[in-house]
């Protein structure tokens, strides 16, 4: 396996700390052999894992407060419109 092949095939390997990818670890034999022999690729893999980990530490952002109120109002209005239409369909004789 060349370094280029390693870069192409290590997608799942660098995710392999997650349980979903455990099943694929058996396919990583050639990759691990390359890594054992190539300190530069080992550091690249470690850097890549660090990169993904950093973005995973990131917390979801809070909505701007003024916008949150506007959003609620907008959704509520649309909800009323949609359900008024639905109720009219259910009760065509105007008994709503």
């Amino acid at each position, binding site marked *: 396996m060349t370094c280029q092949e390693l870069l192409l095939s290590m997608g799942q390997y660098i995710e392999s700390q997650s349980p979903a990818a455990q099943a694929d670890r058996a396919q990583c034999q050639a990759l691990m052999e390359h890594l054992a022999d190539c300190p*530069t690729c080992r550091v*690249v893999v470690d*850097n*890549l894992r660090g990169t993904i*980990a950093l973005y995973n530490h*990131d917390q*979801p952002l809070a909505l701007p407060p003024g916008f949150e109120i506007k959003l609620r109002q*907008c959704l509520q209005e649309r909800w009323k419109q949609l359900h008024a239409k639905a109720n009219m369909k259910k009760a065509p004789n105007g008994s709503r």
Partner: protein
Amino acid sequence: MPEPTAQLDPDLDLLHQARGGDFAAFEHLVRRHQASVYRLGLRITGHVADAEDVVQETFLSAMEHLSDFAGRSLLSTWLLRIATHASLKILRKRKTQAQPVDPRDNPLSADGEPLPHPQFVAPWKERPEQLAMQSETRSLLEQAIHELEEKYRLIFLLRDVEHLSTEQAADILGITIANAKVRLMRARLLLRERLTRHFGDYERLMPHVHEDSVTNSSSGASKMQRSNA
């Protein structure tokens, strides 16, 4: 990575109530997912006002199509799909000219094209957990992701930040799975390069790495050509 269809969707109860006409249940769903939808919208569009439009558009669309949600994915995945499309719509509007076709995206050659070779290779001075605690890290992460080309930014956000499967991300972006994998690796390598230049230990810089030797067919020995030049 398998599709999460077998997972029990934690939103199912609220979804049933909302479908039955309960606005409070729908609002609850909005509160539960608004931050991740906003984050995705902000990172794709790069503007607060656009991200707000993405949030509004996403939940309005979800409200109008609640009965169409078939449960083949998690509700959260469905919302991220809507949010991605809403964000892309904004980007398309912004663009005055069509993006040139990138030959590297040809599905036929997607697997054969070389990836960007790592240039700056050094262990990081600190662990990611320690770096994540530092205030300057967040702005660097944001800056790095916005320096990525749109197609790399999108796949990285969907796969490595929002944790969709490759199949789901490829489907949302309308690309092949092979392309999604190559784009993701490119995105990761570009971000690695950028972050390592910032976080890397310059005293432990690894030898410069060059392209693999194509003609070298010997096995066993390291196939990397290196130079200290």
